[in-house]
């Protein structure tokens, strides 16, 4: 398929009292794992619901594999597996009946071997599936939600907070599942609050703040943009230089410790440090969490 898995074009959604989404544009390539980030109320779920035609945009358009999400909604939804943030399972239905009903609504028949593989991977036993969903823990409901989203093996998976409520072992199982989906050529579009998780599994991220898409980047580019943290400790007091090499920004400077942020190559600062009595040198890659917190808090740099 030549068309991107997802394309949203100047998408806006206004409610009477609030603008949930403002002029957002984005493309997600086929086979990509895309993390969609933002604080509560930033517009992540609204965007997802527009993709599924559960909510109609005020302006702009959304496409999935080149199909208009509003005009060709049925065709779009035939190619999407969806995990809602709060799956509305009926408590009195068993897990198995829930999966069977939702499988009956899929475009193509569900392969029982694939479903079994998903259940095994997420450790949902056959005996669990015979129980009513009201007896499930939060994590089990999440697992059931993941299975129902993935069981039709749709080319695009839209997952809203997929690891919410999963224990660390199940989170690992989910990451392995995403790796398998990637290997099968599936596209995953997931919203998340968990930045280490996004850093671990996503190829690219988009960040929404108050309905505006303020950042779209690969994780690597974002790190590069943020720069590395260089901390040099000296065996004796040294004088701070009058000027710093290009790309080097002092964070905290004392006679015995320099704490710097370096964007770009490390060579110039290392060359300068080489002439000084270094006791210790520490270079840290920035965590996504640190970088994104600045975007959550402040308007993006012009």
């Amino acid at each position, binding site marked *: 398929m030549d068309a991107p898995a997802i394309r949203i074009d100047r998408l806006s959604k206004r409610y009477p009292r609030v603008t949930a989404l403002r002029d957002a544009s984005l493309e997600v390539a086929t086979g990509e794992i895309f993390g969609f980030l933002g604080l509560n109320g930033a517009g992540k779920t609204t965007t997802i*619901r527009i993709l*599924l*035609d*559960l*909510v*109609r945009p005020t302006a702009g358009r959304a496409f999935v594999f080149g199909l208009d999400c509003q005009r060709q*909604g*049925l*065709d779009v*939804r*035939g190619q*999407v597996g*969806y995990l*809602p943030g*709060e*799956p*509305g*399972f*009926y408590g009195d239905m068993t897990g198995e009946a829930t999966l069977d*009903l*939702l499988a*009956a*609504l*899929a*475009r193509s028949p569900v392969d029982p071997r694939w479903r079994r593989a998903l259940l095994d991977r997420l450790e949902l036993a056959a005996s669990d599936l015979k129980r009513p969903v009201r007896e499930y823990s939060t994590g089990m409901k999440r697992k059931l939600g993941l299975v*129902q989203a993935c069981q039709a093996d749709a080319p695009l998976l*839209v997952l809203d907070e997929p690891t919410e409520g999963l224990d660390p072992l199940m989170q690992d199982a989910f990451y392995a599942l995403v790796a398998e989906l990637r290997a099968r050529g599936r596209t995953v579009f997931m919203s998340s609050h968990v930045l280490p998780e996004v850093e671990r599994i996503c190829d690219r991220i988009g960040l929404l703040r108050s309905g505006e898409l303020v950042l779209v980047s690969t994780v690597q580019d974002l790190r590069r943009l943020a720069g590395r943290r260089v901390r040099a400790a000296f065996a004796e007091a040294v004088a701070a230089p009058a000027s710093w090499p290009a790309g080097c920004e002092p964070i905290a400077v004392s006679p015995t410790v320099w704490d710097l942020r370096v964007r770009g190559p490390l060579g110039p600062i290392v060359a300068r440090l080489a002439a000084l009595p270094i006791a210790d040198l520490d270079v840290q890659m920035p965590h996504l969490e640190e970088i994104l917190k600045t975007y959550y808090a402040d308007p993006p740099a012009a």
Partner: protein
Amino acid sequence: MTPRTLALAAHSLRRIRPIAMGMAIVLGGFQFLLTQVAVFLTRNRAFGMLASLVPDFIRSLAGPSMVAFMSFGGVVSLGYFHPIVLASLVGLAIGIGTEPAAEVESRFGDLVLARPVARHQVITRSVIVLVTVVAALLLVMASATWIGLACCTPAAAERPPFALIRSLAVTLAAIVLCWGGVALAAAAAARRRATAAGMTAVAALASYLVDYLGRVWDPARLASRLSPFHYFEPMALLTGGALNAGNVAVLLAIGAAGVVAGYAIFSRRDL
């Protein structure tokens, strides 16, 4: 009708089965027992005594329907217009009609409509369930009446003809489906089932009272024409009148208008 619509309808029917079966047992049992009450009153020649207990002004207010009610056929037919039976069936129809709002509220609708299911299929599903359940319940009521008449009625009793029972069932089905359609329209716009069901129930109650006022108070007669209950006239059937196809058509048209509004609203709204 697509397999997905049928899958949804089968799911809804499974969910409502305990309530529907309970109502079938209660209403069927009630109809059967009414035939036995009528037999008992006939054997004790009590109809005349009962009629004499009713004050004259009530008798003149109610007209010939009172005479019809104080008869074997009237007692046997009571279930087809008794206010409690009517309220319970309308309540059931409101419950079925408001399922789309319940699914929006519980977010089960997200799971359904995130799949290749068109929104009109959700409404069509509710129509199928509504018609199926109402038809099944009235069939059970009519069957219970027939069984009661066939097995235990003395030959001398003035059994109501089958056509009367059928006409009473049809007119009762029409008023119930009418309110089911109204409930569907309300549910298509609501985010909560309680809102849709409450609005429809209040509208039904107000309509019932307006119709009642119109029947006993001339100044309210014109306004009562706006009430669907104005077109629900089982007493006319009991007093020997034929089934008024126009009245049935009005009730079904109101229900159909509700369904059409439901389709239009549900297909346009944000979920």
